[in-house]
């Protein structure tokens, strides 16, 4: 059991071990969570998640099971569900509040051969108006005395997009005149590097390309129409059919002598739509008896897409037009905290370790050029207050190792 091995060593027993035994111990437990060359532990997690913000509630269960078979093969399987109840600002402006469920299943397999790990997997996601199939493949190689792990990966995804409409009898069905597709490809390079006895770095680069229907079929742009209604008219969005993005991140994690860890992360993002994003995150993990506590602060900012506008001056203003707020300029903060309690399950000797976990995060998004169009009647089109989003994200889960 990795945690107990590590704790025993920290308690001082490691100091009386001979170098040979210390080497053996290290080889047994080395780097399992962070580096390749070691298969995932046998583990099962059951979670309930809840998101509440911007008049949207999303909650549901999630399950993840990882199991080794022999010394060189490991399988994983997962189930995830989003039960969505939405009356968001977008829905109120151009559609109707709705309830729907998204279900996702995933399976994966890893094969370890020497210092090389081969992995592949499949993810299937289905909601009433969106079906996505994703496959992914990766190869990891330990090198330089196992101080470095290099991973290259590829993923391919195929999405089918539908649009729901409400029948006169109230039944919601797919619009028979609307069926679009989108294809995605992703290429990743990851390097995990032990720098010192207490410091590890993780570099990730990802190139993603998309082709097909990339817009949200329910959302609308708006353009000025003085004297009509609230001073604006809604129209369909027109997105480019392709998108390519590059993202690179660097994480550093440092072990503190009082059995705690501090981590810092930066990510740079740029895409062909003109969005440039920066993410900075700091994490702190502390331990106390059977408890592990986590704290996190994350800051994110992005520029808007070239073809985004909150309010166009007139109809058919440009070839591409969008008002998805994910493409707007904004800054957000996420502040989170979590706690995990390790406990013993009586009468289940096959469970080597178990934890009960809770985590709470608060997300605050401050939009720079996305206005609350619902208030146009009060303030006038284009003069509404900028929209702000506050959301609470809650997770509770139990993990067992067996």
């Amino acid at each position, binding site marked *: 059991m990795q945690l107990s091995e*590590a704790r025993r060593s920290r308690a001082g027993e490691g100091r009386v071990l001979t170098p040979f035994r210390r080497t053996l111990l290290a080889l047994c437990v*080395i780097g399992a*969570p*962070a580096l390749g060359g070691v298969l995932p532990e046998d583990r099962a997690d059951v979670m309930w998640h809840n998101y509440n913000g911007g008049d949207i509630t999303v909650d549901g269960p999630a399950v993840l099971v990882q199991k080794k078979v022999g010394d060189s093969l490991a399988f994983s399987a*997962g189930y995830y569900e*989003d039960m969505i109840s939405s009356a968001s600002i977008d829905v109120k402006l151009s559609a109707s509040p709705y309830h729907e469920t998204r279900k996702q299943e995933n399976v994966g397999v890893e094969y370890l051969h020497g210092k090389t790990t081969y992995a592949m997997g499949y993810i299937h996601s289905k909601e009433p108006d969106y079906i996505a199939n994703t496959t992914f493949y990766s190869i990891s190689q330990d090198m330089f005395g196992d101080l470095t792990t290099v991973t290259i990966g590829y993923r391919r995804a195929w999405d089918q997009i539908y649009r729901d409409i409400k029948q006169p009898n109230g039944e919601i069905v797919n619009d028979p005149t609307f069926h679009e597709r989108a294809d995605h490809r992703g290429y990743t390079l990851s390097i995990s590097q*032990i720098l010192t006895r207490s410091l590890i770095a993780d570099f990730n680069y990802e190139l993603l390309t998309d082709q097909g229907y990339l817009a949200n079929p329910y959302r609308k742009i708006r353009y000025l129409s003085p004297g009509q209604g609230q001073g604006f008219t809604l129209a369909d969005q027109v997105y480019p059919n392709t998108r390519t*993005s590059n993202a690179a991140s660097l994480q550093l994690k440092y072990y503190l002598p009082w059995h705690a860890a501090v981590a810092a992360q930066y990510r740079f993002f740029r895409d062909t739509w003109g969005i440039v*994003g920066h993410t900075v995150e700091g994490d702190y993990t502390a331990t106390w008896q059977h408890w592990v506590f986590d704290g996190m602060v994350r800051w994110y900012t992005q520029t808007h897409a070239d073809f985004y506008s909150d309010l166009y001056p007139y109809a058919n203003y440009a070839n591409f037009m969008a008002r998805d707020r994910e493409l707007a300029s904004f800054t957000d903060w996420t502040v989170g905290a979590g706690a995990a309690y390790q406990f013993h399950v009586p009468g289940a000797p096959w469970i080597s370790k178990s934890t009960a976990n809770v985590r709470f995060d608060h997300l605050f998004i401050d939009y720079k050029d996305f206005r609350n169009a619902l208030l146009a009647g009060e303030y006038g089109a284009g003069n509404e207050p900028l929209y702000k989003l506050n959301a609470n994200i809650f997770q509770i889960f139990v*993990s067992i190792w067996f």
Partner: protein
Amino acid sequence: MSTKHKSLTRTVAAGVLLVALAGCTAPTPWVKPYEREHFADPIMSFNRDPISSVYLDHVLESREGSRGATGAVGGGCGCN
């Protein structure tokens, strides 16, 4: 060729030779296996609870324009 240029050429050649020789030998791990016990501790994992980190990535990615380079693979969805 001037003396200055000869000296520069020798220096560059020596540098190239040094790099080439360095490439012939595997670098010695500067952190020995028995010195890596901290990395076996779960608190040093970048992804201690995959079910939790994948979920949080999914929530944030659904609301932000940036994507990728998180070290995780998520499935597609129409989640906006």
